[in-house]
């Protein structure tokens, strides 16, 4: 153990009063409970305000919605996760006029250049937050972290039943503290900056566009 550690901890222990009377903390104000429809509407409105494109569709229609999105753009490929249910569904019914599906199958050390060169990606999501308008992503071996970051267009698929009222709710209901993965991300829109004269511009280092397909029913 380093002596710096011991010195610091010794100073901190001496500094903190041990017999301090502690006032009870104010209770967290209860978050408003929204219906599923309200949650979808709230999340859509909030995320659109942050320049995300939000398409509400359903289990039957989402692939067509996706294809429409893709056909309206000229893309060199769509990075996807071949091993996920979502990836398998995509691969099973891919059309030849669509940008080719490119699997994220190798470690970043072997694929970094390609990851930074591909135009678009599609990922699933762990859920969403209605109150602030954000997606929850838990990247994993199948859907690695750079998928939602490196390509200029990120498409995310969100199950409407997995939208929480708030982050506090998501943490409590899903018991995050017992199972935090390597990385958790909240994403509320395409990347943005206001560092020049506070002028808001979208698409700095991360994706320039974020499209959310909400599967509602």
């Amino acid at each position, binding site marked *: 153990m380093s002596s710096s*550690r011991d010195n610091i901890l010794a100073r901190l222990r001496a500094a903190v009063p041990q017999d301090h009377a502690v006032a009870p903390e104010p209770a967290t104000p209860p978050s408003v409970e929204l219906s599923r429809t309200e949650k979808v509407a709230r999340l859509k409105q909030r995320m659109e305000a942050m320049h995300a494109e939000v398409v509400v569709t359903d289990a039957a229609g989402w692939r067509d919605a996706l294809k429409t999105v893709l056909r309206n753009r000229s893309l060199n490929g769509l990075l996807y996760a071949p091993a996920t249910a979502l990836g398998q569904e995509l691969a099973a019914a891919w059309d030849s006029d669509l940008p080719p599906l490119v699997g994220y199958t190798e470690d970043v050390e072997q694929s970094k*250049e390609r990851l930074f060169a591909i135009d678009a990606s599609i990922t699933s999501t762990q859920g969403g937050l209605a109150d602030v308008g954000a997606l929850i992503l838990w990247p994993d071996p199948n859907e690695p972290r750079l998928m939602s970051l490196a390509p200029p267009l990120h498409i995310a698929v969100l199950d409407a039943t997995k939208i929480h009222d708030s982050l*506090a709710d998501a943490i409590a209901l899903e018991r995050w503290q017992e199972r935090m993965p390597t990385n958790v991300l909240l994403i509320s829109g395409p990347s943005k*900056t206001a560092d020049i004269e506070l002028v808001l511009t979208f*698409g700095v*280092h991360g994706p320039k566009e974020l499209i959310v397909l909400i599967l509602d029913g």
Partner: protein
Amino acid sequence: MASSVVVDFPKNFANALSNPQLRRNLRAAMDTLGMRRRAIFSDKDAFEALRAQGDAIRQRSLRQLPQLLEQLEKKCTENGIQVHWAETTTEASQICLSIIQSHHATRVIKGKSMVSEEMHLNHVLEEHGIEALETDLGEYIIQLDHETPSHIIVPAIHKNRDQIARLFHDKIPNTPYTEVVEELNAIARKVLREKFCAGEVGVSGVNFAVAETGTLCLVENEGNGRMCTTAPPVHIAVMGLEKVVERLTDVPPLLRLLTGSATGQLITTYFNMITSPRKSGEKDGPKEVHLVLLDNGRSKILADPELRQTLKCIRCGACLNHCPVYTRLGGHAYGYVYPGPIGSILTPQIEGLENAGAMASASTLCGACEEVCPVKIPITHILRRLRNESYSKTDSPNAVKGHGYKSNLAESLTWKGWALTNSAPWANVLNAKLLGLLGSQLTKLSKVELVKNWTQVRTMPKFASKSLHALAKEKGISDE
């Protein structure tokens, strides 16, 4: 070392105030940030409830600081994050340097971190032939111009688009002059994407570290922070040791307070929670993650119940945005890394009153900072305390470094005289009282200078021919 820096405050202040461009840039930006904050916290009661919660969480975190840091260390270590402790900024920089050198790395990409500014990390790395590239757009801009941040959230806010256009044109090869913000943005994106791809080590700060899970939380809009913490094989996170919180459930209220107070956002584009290095089977993310915990005087600040409140700060910058003094000076005039109200209470405690005590006098105590502070730091009380300790030598172990550095000045005598005239009922000497009011014979201020300073833009106050004491007596107002 920052402590050897001698800051000429009066000269800095005068220079800043005589720069109309700076004044305009700042005013416009601070007004906008203030407006956005008001819009997001338009429900005053809800805001008060939220910040009471934020205050309580931060107080609890500080009360348990040693235990929480040990828990954080334990959890991080279990998760595979290597934890380092640094007493000084020099030690923290050395830790970063050794990690970088052990990987034979020369290209470091950095996310925005005020603690790394406090460490002067870039400078240390450059001395050892390591390129430390700032990747936050604002930080990138000022690094190109060899400047330091003038604001803790929007570091290049002192510059306008013309100045940035000129800078990009001059400093980035083959860059045409453009004042279009989107185009300036695109230029930076192009340069930096190549760097993200090639970076060997990523350095970031930490907004909150969660002890119960060993999670490092980062708040950002641009995605450069995610790049720095995801793309390179090594990630070093540097953190002031006060940033730890107990539980994951402590995060949501603090996050809301931070983004709302800083830029009036419900949430930033990205909230990035890192709990471990790349695990077996995962295809990306750094294989090594290091957490450097920096003390640099914080453990001493913790010892005093009043001064301790300084450490509640979550670095939102709202106190800067609402400060009538910061708004007119900008950050550089303060001469140290942390400017504005929070800088004026934090810096003298870290650097010593003899070096930075003057920062505490650059405030009217108007309280605009306290009104917006999301964790209720009693900034004006702490400013008064620092002013007091500047004059008084004390035996208290909690005394601020450099206390009593002004103890020999004539000002102390002046106030003693003032106290005498105002506590003895017989002394009703008008002149003495008024001069006391304005602090005559203040530090190095003769009566002539006092008048000169006052009359710079004002006429002299006129004494009434009869005091209220005299008038009240004359009109028969009872003196029971």
